[in-house]
């Protein structure tokens, strides 16, 4: 429509209203050109770079388009803009010959101003399907009667104003309700995070004190690797190292019946050593 407006309005301009018309048409045309460019680059991106496209950038493109459409709407609603409905576009000359000026103006989209393109480009009536739907809606509206219609209007107004109020109120009012809603559906549990990280990092929760059987090639009761504070895990390191010598034959029968009792005996062994095993004391200044 951009090219059509510019091409024909030039013939009609004479008065100041016409000057105003021209100005508003120019600005409308430039806005529409922005939309066209945005759409063009978006389509190009979708067609050629779809492997690398991520949805944040797609959302950005849509947001840009919606912003541009909004400015067009604002421009049309502006009081300085004359009503375009009052203007009539009449084709004065139709020819099946190619028109170079028109082709240049429209970037080769409309090379010929002929009988074929006029019904599409200069259409003012909506499509037949759309017309049908509009007719149905207006008969429906006439059918329900004015009181019912009024009630429906009031209900809609109330819903809209409620929503606007909620949106306009400061966040702290809303946070108390939404936080209680959010608590019903949390998507992660910090305790679980800690449990899983512990399991991956040093096997917390994975069976440690394995009962030594004839088939088990592993050493039961070996504590975790890194040195840390005086915790139960640390305690079993001492137990492991202390019992290492006895692991083979004589150690096994001792542990076999009492995997649960092992920690208690180890505690006494290790307490004396735990202070010096803390890694951070090595780097503190010694006063």
């Amino acid at each position, binding site marked *: 429509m951009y090219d059509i407006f510019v091409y024909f309005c030039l013939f009609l301009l004479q008065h100041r209203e016409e000057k105003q018309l021209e100005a508003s048409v120019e600005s409308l045309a430039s806005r529409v050109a922005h939309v066209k460019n945005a759409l063009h680059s978006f389509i190009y991106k979708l067609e050629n770079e779809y*492997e*690398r*496209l*991520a*949805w*944040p950038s797609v959302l950005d493109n849509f947001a840009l388009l919606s912003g541009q459409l909004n400015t067009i709407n604002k421009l049309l609603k502006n009081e300085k803009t004359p009503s375009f409905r009052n203007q009539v576009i009449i084709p004065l000359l139709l020819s099946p010959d190619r028109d170079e000026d028109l082709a240049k103006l429209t970037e080769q989209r409309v090379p010929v101003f002929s009988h074929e393109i006029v019904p599409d480009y200069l259409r003012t009536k909506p499509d037949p399907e759309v017309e049908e739907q509009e007719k149905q809606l207006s008969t429906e509206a006439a059918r329900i009667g004015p009181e019912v219609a009024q009630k429906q209007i009031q209900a809609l107004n109330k819903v809209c104003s409620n929503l606007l109020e909620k949106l306009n109120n400061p966040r702290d009012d809303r946070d108390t309700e939404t936080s209680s809603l959010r608590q019903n559906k*949390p*998507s*992660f*549990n*910090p305790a*679980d*995070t*800690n*449990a*899983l*990280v*512990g*399991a*991956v*990092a*040093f*096997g*917390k*929760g*994975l*069976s*440690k004190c*394995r009962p030594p059987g004839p088939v*088990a*090639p*592993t*050493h039961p009761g*070996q504590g*975790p*690797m*890194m*040195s*840390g*504070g005086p*915790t139960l*895990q*640390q305690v079993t*390191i001492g137990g*492991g*190292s202390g019992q*290492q010598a006895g692991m083979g034959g004589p150690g096994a029968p001792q542990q076999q019946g009492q995997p649960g009792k092992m920690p208690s005996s180890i505690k006494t062994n290790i307490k004396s*050593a735990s202070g010096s*095993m803390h*890694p951070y004391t*090595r*780097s503190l*200044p*010694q*006063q």
Partner: protein
Amino acid sequence: MFICVNSTGETMFSYFRLKSVWVKMEAPPVTVMPVTGGTINMMEYLLQGSVLDQALESLLHRLRGLCDNMEPESFTDHELVYLLKGQQGNPFILRARRSLSHPTAPWHLRYLGQPEVGDKSRHALVRNCVDVAASHSLPEFLNEMGFRMDHEFVANGHIFRKGVMKVVVSKLSRILVPGNTENTERLSLSYLVELSVLAPAGQDTVSEDMRSFAEQLKPLVHLEKIDPSKQRH
């Protein structure tokens, strides 16, 4: 001030006087030391979080949108953690991992160092990392070397990639009968989510990129730097 140097010329410790007392400083962490030779030290930058089962689908959808466009890959791995006890008491840990979904693929052996405590403002956990592939005789080899298996678990889930960043969403299960990977029991009702990058030492911009990616996953999952030594309790 004097400096203790080890056989390769690296500064190990230095002592300087503070008032009337000698104070010992250890060598700075690897990230600020120049690379003098041998292989480049790779560091693993890590952020971890978890997501409940019911939110898993939405997390997977979001990751599919945010990450590189590839078929989401699922995996089932069996990881065994081996310890070698030394004289000093800090055992040496190696992690051996094999794929249960690709039984003929080689084993993967990994060493993870202590997390670096250098920079508190760094957003990710940084630790030294060495990865090698190994043949199927790895467990016997480690046993012969003196390593003993400490614990094992089965992890299965999905892996996504975005540039150099790798996101792994996995469900951990404990093995009830040692050596039997069929008989497993889930460790918790959540999936572990890990965002990691393997980069040479010294690149601190990596953690910034990781943090901005982690922002995009909120509020579904909070990826943060979790110090493993704090999880002992």
